[in-house]
């Protein structure tokens, strides 16, 4: 159900932390958090107030997360990533900047500057409490009382304005290998209970024309009718890069496609879905993707990212995470169990359940949630866009357009009835038997040509022999 246990996550993170720590040993010991206000949001602005409430992408604020010594320890990095997620849910852009590296411009543009680490951080001295003409607010978080305390402090600050963001529901890892009937049953059940949902689709870029794939596409289209909104998941088999593994080791698709670039593969998958009348709104994956150089290129094509699991622990490069600008929906942590990771009310959150989860457990869990008062917002009201090459899919105020016109899918024209065509024009659509027959006929033709040549010669010679015989 939830992807990785805390202990597993910590175990992996601690390993990576040693290397990352060594890499950063020569850097400034001062770290921080910041949120930078986006200057030009690629997202269309939302209109109706109601839609704004349900559309986290409508905000245009930036946060700056400044850090110092927090990056030096494993626990500190975890705190930073958790704070980053919390800020991501409420701010469309979050920049991580080492203390001392920030510029005045960054400070001026940020609506919220979060200083991680507490009163002991040296960089705090260089952060002015206020800048003339900027609306930014400085929040110094203390970690001396632990992780949870820092998160709670940030949550309280974020919730100061009293804004409450919606909670979403998501079906993860929807793929062709599932039991389609069960999948449809879950979709119908969600529809009957008025739960709109995101559905994370596995990217598919090969064998998209097969019969079983068509059945899969039919099922996903039906899920869309049930209130499902597609998100493009991570590449099948892909795992975030590990410092101890080959970077590409996780690509199962290698050799099956004409490229192993995530950007190109994801583009192919997106286009394949769009051509089938399935319109992904954004991306979905573990938050680590935000910090991966390869995925940074992918994420540039869209403006919506929905977490489907906890942080996997692969923090490689905070620049990548800082670069992306768009709507971010964090994964709803089980805060009660972990004692931290509580998302503020101001942040949207997503409850993600695997599509392969047994149906009964699936229903029971959601029923419990509904009984406890949870309500799930309609993801379709979240503004977003996705583009690849010349094609653009835009959702604005619940209206979907593809390349500027309302997206309405028409079933493809049935293939021409090749049975009425002469067999020669059927071309590559020949069955294996028919191909064998055709090849045999070609061989037979060559043989018959040889026989005809031999017989003609025999006939001419035979006539000559006969003539001489009777002349004797």
């Amino acid at each position, binding site marked *: 159900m939830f992807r990785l246990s805390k202990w597993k996550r910590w175990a992996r993170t601690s390993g990576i932390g040693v290397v990352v720590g060594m890499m950063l040993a020569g850097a400034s010991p001062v770290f921080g958090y910041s949120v930078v206000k986006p200057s030009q949001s690629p997202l269309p602005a939302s209109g109706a107030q109601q839609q704004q409430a349900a559309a986290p992408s409508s905000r245009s604020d930036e946060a700056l997360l400044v850090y110092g010594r927090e990056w030096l320890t494993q626990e500190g990095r975890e705190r930073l990533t958790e704070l980053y997620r919390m800020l991501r849910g409420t701010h469309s852009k979050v920049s991580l900047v080492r203390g001392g590296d920030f510029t005045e411009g960054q400070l001026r543009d940020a609506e919220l500057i979060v200083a991680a680490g507490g009163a002991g951080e040296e960089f705090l001295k260089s952060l002015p409490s206020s800048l003339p003409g900027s609306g930014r607010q400085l929040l110094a978080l203390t970690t001396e009382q632990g992780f949870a305390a820092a998160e709670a402090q940030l949550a309280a600050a974020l919730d100061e304005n009293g804004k409450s963001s919606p909670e979403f529901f998501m079906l993860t890892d929807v793929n062709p290998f599932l039991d389609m009937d069960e999948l449809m049953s879950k979709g119908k059940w969600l529809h009957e209970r008025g739960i709109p949902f995101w559905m994370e689709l596995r990217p598919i870029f090969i064998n998209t024309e097969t019969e079983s794939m068509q059945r899969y596409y039919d099922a996903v289209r039906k899920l869309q009718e049930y209130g499902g909104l597609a998100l493009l998941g991570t590449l099948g088999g892909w795992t975030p890069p590990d410092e101890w593994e080959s970077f590409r080791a996780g690509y199962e698709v290698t050799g099956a496609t004409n490229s192993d670039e995530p950007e190109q593969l994801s583009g192919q998958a997106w286009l394949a879905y769009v051509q089938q009348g399935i319109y992904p709104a954004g991306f979905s994956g573990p938050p680590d993707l935000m910090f991966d150089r390869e995925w940074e290129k992918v994420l540039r094509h869209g403006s919506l990212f929905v977490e489907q699991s906890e942080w996997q622990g692969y923090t490689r490069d905070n620049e990548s995470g800082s670069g992306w600008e768009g709507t971010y929906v964090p994964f709803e942590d089980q805060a009660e169990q972990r004692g931290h990771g509580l998302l503020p009310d101001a942040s949207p959150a997503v409850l993600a359940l695997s599509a392969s989860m047994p149906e009964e457990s699936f229903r029971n869990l959601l029923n419990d949630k509904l009984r406890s008062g949870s309500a799930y917002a309609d993801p379709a009201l979240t503004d977003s866009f996705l583009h690849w090459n010349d094609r653009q899919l835009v959702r604005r105020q619940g209206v979907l357009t593809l390349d500027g016109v309302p997206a309405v899918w028409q079933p493809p024209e049935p293939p021409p009835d090749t049975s009425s065509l002469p067999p020669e024009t059927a071309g590559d*659509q020949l*069955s294996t038997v028919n191909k064998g027959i055709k090849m045999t006929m070609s061989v037979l*033709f060559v043989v018959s040509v040889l026989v005809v040549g031999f017989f003609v010669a*025999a006939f001419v010679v035979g006539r000559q022999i006969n003539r001489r015989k009777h002349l004797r």
Partner: protein
Amino acid sequence: MEQQLGVVDYLFLYCMICIWIMLLINIVLTAGGYRYYLKTLQMRVDEPLDEYPSVSVLIPAHNEEKVIGQTVSALMALDYPADKLEIIVINDNSSDATGDILAELQQSRPDINLRVLTTDAVTGGKGKSGALNNGYAISKGEILAVYDADNTPERSALKILVHTLVRNDRLGAVIGKFRTRNTSKNWLTRFINIETLGFQWMVQAGRWQLFGLCTIPGTNFVVRRSLIERMGGWDTRAIAEDTEISFRIYRFGYKIQYMPLSVTWEQEPETVPVWIKQRSRWVKGNIYVLLKNIKLLFTRESKHIRFDLLYFCSVYFLFLSSALLSDAIFLLGILGLVEYKIAGNTLLLWMMAFLVFVLEMAIALSMEKGQSRPRNIGYVAIMYFTYCQMWLVVAVNGFYQFIRDAILRREARWYKTERF
């Protein structure tokens, strides 16, 4: 979507496979026949024997007044020691002047050992096999020769056959060639002339060259008396007695050689109804023989005749059914009622099949003096669409008669070919 083949496609495929299997077999046989033809050019079959065996020539005759005089005259003129030759005409329950003609011939040539065995409805009238059994019963020759009542053998015909038989102990019988006497009568006889030459140079000569097999054609052949004795005479239930006796000779371990230098000329049907009746009898008779011997396919002792069994089975069952089916598919296709999805250039392949057929026949014609002229090649091309298609009618008719007689338990009736 891949094109999936339907029932019509598989039927069409069956036709193509059967037709091309037969075509390929005939290509091989033609090559064998051609090789044998080249061998015959070097043969010296007229070298005399030290001692000639006695020969009884059997001529079954039932109401043969139109042709019997010419036939017996030709037989009396055979180049064979008169003291070793016995001509037995079985005047089998004739109601015409056959007996009178034979009596006259007897009187005109008292130097010839011409014997006439006259039977009536009680003692004869059992068809060709019965007549041959009657003639064989009174014959004395070490070798038996058989000629049909409408035959005109060349003078050397019998001697060549006997020379060949005596010089090879492994031979149980030797068959000669038969030519069409009335070729120029009409289109039908021209077609028959081409057919008989094609059959003999391709099927007979080719099988002999490649497999040591031949089928006795019913006339112009010699067979060892000892073999007829061992087999107890001709099978009176077989109306294709020639094919039937061939299989029995095979089973005794003997071979039957085709000797094309021994020639007889015979009269062929001049009208389609007569031709259909005669050929239907052949088909019916051959089916009987095939079914009688089909079990030999699975015995080791008869492995040397397996090819013949398979060949005739292919001709009468596979080829016939496929030819009928392909014609039906062709006609239904023209009417737009069916269509096939078989890939490949079937039209081109069909044209090649036609070309191969014409050339096979042309090669056979090239082995006979004056037969390979362009007009005859034209006849071959036309035959493919006419005469060959008529064979389908004959084959179906023969099958029908066989099944009908088998169900009604009718005794096989021997149809005597009408003479002209």
